[in-house]
């Protein structure tokens, strides 16, 4: 596919083309798994690539798994947003209040357990996981995350806080702290 674009640099153009050709099928599949509709999945992928286009600077190595994960975070958010609008959901999954033991001794967890504990992130809902990963893995400020996920900065703050709370509880439960 030829892009008749004038990106800020030739490198950006090549980067975008690469990201599109390499991951469009993956992103479509991830979106389809959420919206279960061809047109809506394509809507989500289009929206995701539009956001990627605006955030090319965050992608250093388009071929890396980290970049793939970044795109998947974005497309899932786009798909969930579309689904939410379609279903007019009145209550988000992450609105459920999560009890939190604020005194948890997280510092006692050994580094060797981290890979294992990493799997717990998979237990977070998408709505919590997306901003959490963007903050902790991609070091994006809350304002930038809000723009990327079409959320308010307050919503991002709340979701990351909830993600931390839920993870802390999962760690406490799974790691036996």
């Amino acid at each position: 596919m030829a892009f008749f674009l004038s990106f800020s640099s030739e490198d950006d153009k090549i980067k975008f083309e690469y990201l599109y050709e390499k991951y469009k099928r993956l992103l479509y599949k991830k979106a389809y798994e959420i919206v279960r509709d061809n047109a809506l999945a394509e809507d989500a992928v289009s929206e995701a690539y539009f956001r990627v286009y605006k955030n090319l600077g965050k992608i250093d190595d388009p071929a890396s798994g980290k970049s793939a994960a970044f795109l998947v975070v974005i497309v899932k958010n786009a798909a969930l947003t579309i689904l939410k609008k379609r279903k007019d959901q009145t209550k988000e999954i992450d609105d459920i209040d999560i009890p939190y033991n604020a005194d948890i001794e997280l510092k006692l967890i050994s580094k060797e357990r981290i890979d294992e504990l990493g799997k717990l992130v998979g237990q977070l809902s998408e709505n919590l996981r997306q901003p959490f990963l963007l903050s902790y893995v991609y070091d994006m400020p809350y304002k930038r995350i809000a723009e990327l996920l079409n959320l308010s900065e307050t919503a991002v703050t709340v979701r990351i806080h909830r993600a931390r709370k839920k993870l802390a509880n999962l760690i406490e439960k799974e790691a036996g702290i």
Partner: protein
Amino acid sequence: MKDDDLFKSIAEAYTESEAQNLLAEADMLNMTDKKDYSELDKRIKKITEKKNLGRFIPYVSLAASIIALMFFVRMFNFNTPKEKSDIPSSSLPVFEASEQPPVDNIEFIRAKLPSGYMADSIKFDVGETLFYVKSRNGNDIIISVKDKNALTATDLLEKITVDGVTAYGRSQSDYNLLTFKSDGYTFTLTNMYAQNELISIMKKIIV
């Protein structure tokens, strides 16, 4: 280990694990997925093109502002008795553009473009037709076509001759402008980076 460091480590461990799975999944889909993505390809192209035009329009506005400024400077000079005699009557601004755009068909410009350039949309304004053109290299060029008697003030532009035809140009770090008359029209070409590109187009238009 602070909480934030721990959360970061856990998040990175999760992402690293997921990333390998995603790369494998992407490679597999790229080899096996037979779905037709042509519609999606078109949509992505359209989205990014729209975005780029949005980025480019301010430069057209800037060019228009320069021309308008030149027009008013000229008018001011024209109305100042002391300077009036210094201005050759032939270079006085003339603005007689009709309300109707001079051209209503995109084929008009397509027939005048060198190979490797593609006019993909047309827009109408008062007395003006705008063509959005893309080069083979992906550069955006906007071509304005007005009546031959449209604004001709060129004070701030550099006079050049291209294949025997007089043109007026301006080249800045972030935009280029070239205006000339040909075939009963006033053409104004603008782009962001390559003035040579404008001259190439002009050469084809004036043939």
